[in-house]
């Protein structure tokens, strides 16, 4: 009986333990199942994320490529536009010069009052057209990065004097007073590009004149906080402009407002050109203005002190030039005539070759100090002739100066690479010829 009870108790205990064991096992399996499930979910999520990341990367790459292509296209289009404008302007300018020249000739003939008025209008409109084309040409050159600045020593006082002389008459006619103010700390001789400085001054002054009906137009030059930088202010008591107009002022093809074009004319390029030029000259341009009270245009530009050029040195140079043996290589008869005459003014009697081939042959026979070499010629061009001459074993190395119609930098580089020493752009100006020779034979 007691043994039976003990067995029952044991069985009960065994069942209880078995149950507990089963429960724990079930719990373990459940936990493992859950873990498995969570691991799988995590893995799948990871795969998804990785795919998403890789897709994103692909998408970014694709977009970047698309943008790069679009940018390239846009840049090519801009360049093409600039080049087209430059070409067109150049092509238009040549016949326009003819029109202007003819108008001038016509003006000097015997004309009736009415005819004189017509020709006068013809001349004025042609001049305006030429100015516009020059603006477009300049602007497209700057935009294409093809505008090179000169770096020569020049007389700033003289330049300002000349510019003001141009506007003096106009000021008188409009009843305006023209004031010029020179700070004593501004050096007289500076190094830079006088042509471009003159262009900026002319532009600002002609604007000031245009937009001022009464009062004063002024020009002031002063030093800047930075050394070797000058500040120029062109001011007027004219119509002035509001904030909105000021903000767009230096953008290309924009004027204070569309009605400005009707009332005052202009291409809207002048100030954009001034803006780009001042940047190229290491400075900036800005404006202060109030409507009906006038405007003050300021610009700065790098102006390191220059050396005073003396007239006497040039005279000596010209004397010594007479002893030079010079060869002129030029296929065009008229250009040949012009160059010969210019050289004669410098006491130089040049030998003549009509193409590269003849030049090479003549150089073999005689020793020249200087060869003026046209670039484009039949039989043999200037570059090839130069290479042949440089390959010769000559007792005296002649200086070779290219005569080139293209003043672009790359052409100049090609000249130098072929073994030339310098270049003069055509049509040849006497001053330029003289200065270039002075560099070699001081």
């Amino acid at each position, binding site marked *: 009986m007691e043994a039976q009870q003990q067995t029952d108790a044991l069985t009960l205990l065994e069942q209880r333990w078995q149950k*507990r064991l089963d*429960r724990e096992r*079930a719990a373990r399996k459940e*936990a493992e199942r859950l873990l498995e499930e969570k691991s799988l979910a995590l893995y799948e999520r990871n795969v998804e994320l990785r795919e998403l990341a890789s897709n994103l990367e692909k998408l970014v790459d694709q977009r970047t490529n698309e943008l790069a292509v679009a940018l390239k296209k846009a840049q090519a289009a801009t360049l093409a536009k600039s080049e087209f404008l430059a070409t067109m302007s150049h092509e238009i300018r040549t016949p326009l010069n003819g029109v202007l020249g003819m108008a001038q000739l016509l003006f000097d003939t015997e004309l009736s009052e009415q005819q004189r008025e017509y020709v006068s209008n013809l001349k004025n409109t042609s001049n305006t057209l030429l100015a516009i084309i020059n603006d477009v040409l300049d602007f497209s050159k700057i935009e294409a990065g093809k505008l090179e600045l000169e770096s020569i020593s020049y007389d700033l006082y003289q330049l300002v004097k000349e510019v003001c002389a141009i506007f003096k008459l106009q000021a008188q006619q409009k009843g305006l007073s023209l004031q010029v103010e020179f700070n004593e700390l501004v050096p007289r001789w500076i190094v830079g590009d006088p042509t471009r400085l003159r262009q900026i001054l002319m532009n600002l002054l002609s604007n000031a004149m245009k937009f001022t009906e009464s009062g004063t137009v002024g020009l002031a030059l002063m030093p800047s906080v930075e050394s070797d930088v000058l500040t120029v202010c062109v001011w007027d008591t004219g119509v002035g402009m509001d904030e909105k107009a000021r903000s767009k002022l230096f953008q290309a093809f924009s004027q204070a407002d569309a009605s400005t074009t009707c009332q005052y004319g202009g291409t809207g390029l002048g100030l954009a050109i001034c803006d780009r030029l001042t940047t190229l000259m290491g400075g900036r341009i800005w404006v202060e203005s109030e409507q009906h009270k006038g405007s003050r245009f300021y610009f700065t530009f790098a102006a390191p002190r220059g050396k005073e050029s003396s007239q006497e040195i040039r005279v000596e140079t010209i004397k010594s030039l007479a002893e030079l043996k010079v060869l002129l290589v030029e296929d065009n008869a008229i250009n040949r005539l012009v160059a010969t005459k210019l050289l004669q003014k410098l006491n130089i009697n040049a030998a003549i070759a009509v193409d590269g081939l003849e030049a090479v042959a003549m150089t073999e026979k005689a020793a020249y100090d200087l060869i003026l070499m046209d670039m484009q010629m039949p039989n043999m061009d200037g570059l090839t002739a130069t290479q042949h001459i440089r390959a010769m074993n000559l007792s005296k190395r002649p200086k070779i100066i290219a005569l080139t119609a293209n003043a672009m930098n790359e052409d100049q580089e090609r000249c130098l690479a072929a073994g030339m020493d310098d270049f003069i752009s055509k049509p040849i100006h006497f001053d330029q010829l003289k200065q270039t020779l002075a560099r070699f034979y001081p």
Partner: protein
Amino acid sequence: MKGMVFTEFLEMVEAKFSADMVDDIIDDANPASGGAYTSVGTYSHEELVDMVVALSNRTQIPVPVLVRTFGEHVFGVFARSFQQFFEGVPDALTFLSGIEDIIHAQVIKLYPDAQLPKFDCLREGNQLTMIYHSDRHLADLAEGLIMGCGQHFGDNLTIQRDEVNELSTRFIVTKV
């Protein structure tokens, strides 16, 4: 309800009563899940209620007392397992004020489908009013947790409790 609550409850029963009591109340309650709880699983909160009722029947200890005691116990477990929630928390009332915004916010991140009670808290100096909203009728558990929190921080808390309605209970917790 998270499995951890179940495993902790059964461990407490085992420690305070016996392993046999654990077997007995599982047999009595006969939970749908089979009673093989793991801390990483999720189970119906009714199973917990059934087991508490079974424990009460066997021990003659009222259900609310059991649930409160469990709450106190389980807070200590939480505090050991989730120490990061206690960093920089100076006292019990500050911790309790942040239940909704800090603790529950983190729980939702890990378990987006968790069904959490809602606490409206208003702190006034040494007094915190917490209104508990839940359809699970576990205000006793909440009270036990509050007590456990006080013990964890070594703060002497008095709890005044009144039923707002069937789904809401107000606790006024004062630090003495």
